[in-house]
């Protein structure tokens, strides 16, 4: 090798490369950097020995620690299942009332319920269960299909107008759209329903609609208008309206008879999770509260 050129200004040797008059100084690497580099080499050698490293024709060198992410993940999953299994077993053996009464079990059920509710129910019923137009409010004391623990559990299990053979089923006919009633009759009935809930209504229309109501509505909503829970027929005398309380909303519902659907969750959730969810909904709604008073209030 020829004599290395030394840069006049800095006194450092150059690499001998030149680009358009620019030369590169051959500064040595910092010592700390070199030591880190040597340390990395040593680390790599140790790593090859301990951990899976070199590919071969059939498989790879497994390393003396026999570490495998696949095995680790499987073990973690099994451990998780085992841990969940304990909670599930507790939820399975205890009755709904026992779960709600026992503080630890209730806390467990609420934790499970909150997570499952957030993932599956909140898209319709709202994150807090407050409901929306067409989707029942799960926080209040009005229950179309009953607000006891057992009734809530049953509704979650079979759904409403779902594919489940035992589904909760009710049908609000589209009186106007299907031509059962004409527009005037629908308007008169609207006034009647407004009157049922204790609001000011057109007395003449209410009078005209009395017979219409008895013929068409009373069979489900009862003559007094308080509804029938076994049929899932809403109470028309209270202040809670699934599809809205104003005249337009009520008229629209008589005209078109919208019927919401709640899917069945049996099969998608384990029975333990359904129990936890039932407790979660029940506790959040007030737990053991009267499921909507039903005093007669016929106009």
């Amino acid at each position, binding site marked *: 090798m020829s004599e290395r050129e030394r840069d006049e*200004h*800095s*006194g*450092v040797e150059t690499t001998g490369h030149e680009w358009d008059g620019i030369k590169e100084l051959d500064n040595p690497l910092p010592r700390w950097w070199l030591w880190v580099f040597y340390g990395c080499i040593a680390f790599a050698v140790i790593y090859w020995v301990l951990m899976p490293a070199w590919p071969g024709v059939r498989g790879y060198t497994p390393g003396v620690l026999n570490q495998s992410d696949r095995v680790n993940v499987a073990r973690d999953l099994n451990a998780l299942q085992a841990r969940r299994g304990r909670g599930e077993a507790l939820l399975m053996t205890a009755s709904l009332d026992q779960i*709600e009464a026992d503080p630890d079990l209730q806390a467990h059920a609420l934790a499970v319920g909150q997570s499952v509710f957030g993932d599956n129910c909140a898209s319709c019923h*709202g*994150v*807090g*269960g*407050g409901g929306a137009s067409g989707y029942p*409010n799960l*926080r*209040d*004391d*009005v229950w179309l299909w009953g607000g006891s623990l057992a009734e809530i559990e049953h509704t979650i299990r079979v759904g409403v107008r779902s594919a489940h053979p035992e589904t909760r089923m009710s049908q609000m006919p589209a009186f106007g759209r299907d031509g059962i009633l004409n527009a005037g009759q629908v308007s008169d009935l609207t006034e009647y329903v407004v009157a049922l809930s204790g609001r000011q209504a057109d007395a003449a229309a209410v009078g005209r609609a009395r017979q219409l109501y008895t013929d068409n509505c009373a069979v489900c909503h009862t003559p007094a208008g308080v509804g029938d829970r076994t049929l899932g027929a809403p*109470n028309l005398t*209270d*202040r*809670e*309206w699934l599809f809205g*309380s*104003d005249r337009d909303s009520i008229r629209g519902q008589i005209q078109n008879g919208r019927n919401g659907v709640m899917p069945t969750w049996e099969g998608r959730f384990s029975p333990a999770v359904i129990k936890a969810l039932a407790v979660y909904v029940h*506790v959040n709604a*007030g*737990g*053991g*509260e009267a499921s*909507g*008073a039903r005093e007669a209030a016929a106009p």
Partner: protein
Amino acid sequence: MTIIIDRTRERPATAGPVSVAERQREKARPRGLYQARVPIYPKLVHGRWRWIKWALLILMLAIYYITPWIRWERPGALPDQAVLVDFDGGRFYFFMIQLWPQEVYFITGLLVISALALFLVTALFGRLWCGYACPQTVWTDLYIYIERMFEGDRNARMRLDAAPMSFNKLWRKTGKHLVWIGVAFGTGGAWIFYFHDAPTLIRTFWVGTAPMTAYVSCALLTFTTYVFAGHMREQVCTYMCPWPRIQGAMLDDQSFQVTYRYDRGEPRGPHKKTESWEGRGDCIDCNQCVVVCPMGIDIRNGAQLECINCGLCIDACNEIMDKVGRPRGLIAYDTDAAVAARSCGRKPEHRLIRPRTLYYGLALLLVGGLMIWGFSTREQLGVHALRDRNPAWIRLHDGAVRNGYTLKIANHGFETAAVEIRYAGVPGAELRIPGQPGADPLRVEVEPNRVTPLRIFVTAPADRVGEGSRDATFEIRSGDETLTVPTAFDYGSQPQ
């Protein structure tokens, strides 16, 4: 005003106007980023300050090692360790005091007090903390003591380091490092007892069932102790610690610091027994103040960044002054102002009360007072009212409006508290715990030493439903303690 008269340092002869070219050449000269450590071999010294340092060293180490073993009876399943930082339980125990995580401001207050006390002491008496109480100083002192046991005093150590490797050198060096590591391990080992029940941990530590954090903390402190006290020593103070850089702001010419009284010492020079002391200073340039200095500095250059104010040079100089028959105190705790006054022939005055010491003192009193006030008015109960947000309000079948709250009642005491809960601000409001019948007031038992979350429904009756949101309050009463927690009630929007 600070008067620094430094007659000891002569201006270098080359100092003078520097040309631009010269400065540029200076800049371009390659320089390393690292300053290699100049080894320091502090010589053993005897005297008043050395004695105080030994006494403080023993006291500090004793406090450090014994504290976790002091027991303190507490009710129930609570830990019986007097001083314990219980991360698992989320509590800090200090004898009769028990702090919750949310009361961490008391720790902040303690740190503020420590800082202000440090400022005040520094303004008055210089860096006493650095010289006597700082763990870096204490452990370095201990390590130098061990080094001296194995390798002898300064001269022997210098000879040993210069000598080629031999069996003698090998066993002395090995022994020193082994004892150093032992002490380091003891330091790290004692530290972890502050965070777990000490008698339990000392068993589980050795059988390998202690928490991983205990092993990691122990290893970390063992390492730092060995490195900081054994190898880095004064470099920690000079390069790593911010305090030497900050303390200059606290010092003034009235602060007591280790001072070479140049007014008395200069002009210095060697002195023969027969010579007269007339016309010369008392400093005989024996260099003893330099060789005993653990920071490796020459105090005769005046107050400097590296000086930790430990006073070992005072002891060394006093010994020499006794030998040569001159009065003690050529190096002493003194103020710049006093030295300046004496050199001008005036009588030195010491002023302990100065604006800055007043400020620091008043700030210390203020924060200390706040701490005492905080501690004395600390309540047995702490209550937070969290209002349900989603949904914020619920209309019931009859038109009544219900709001849900979670009351978080913290019982700081060790006894179950009987608590009455009332609600004000909403006419006719009914209070209820979900699943239970309504009551006014609600009566609940709150378990000791924990936070009890309590769901509460407040229902405004249908005939008294108002508009929008309004202010309301929870009133929580337990014994003679009453807490008022502001919250709000939302009537929601009304149906048409």
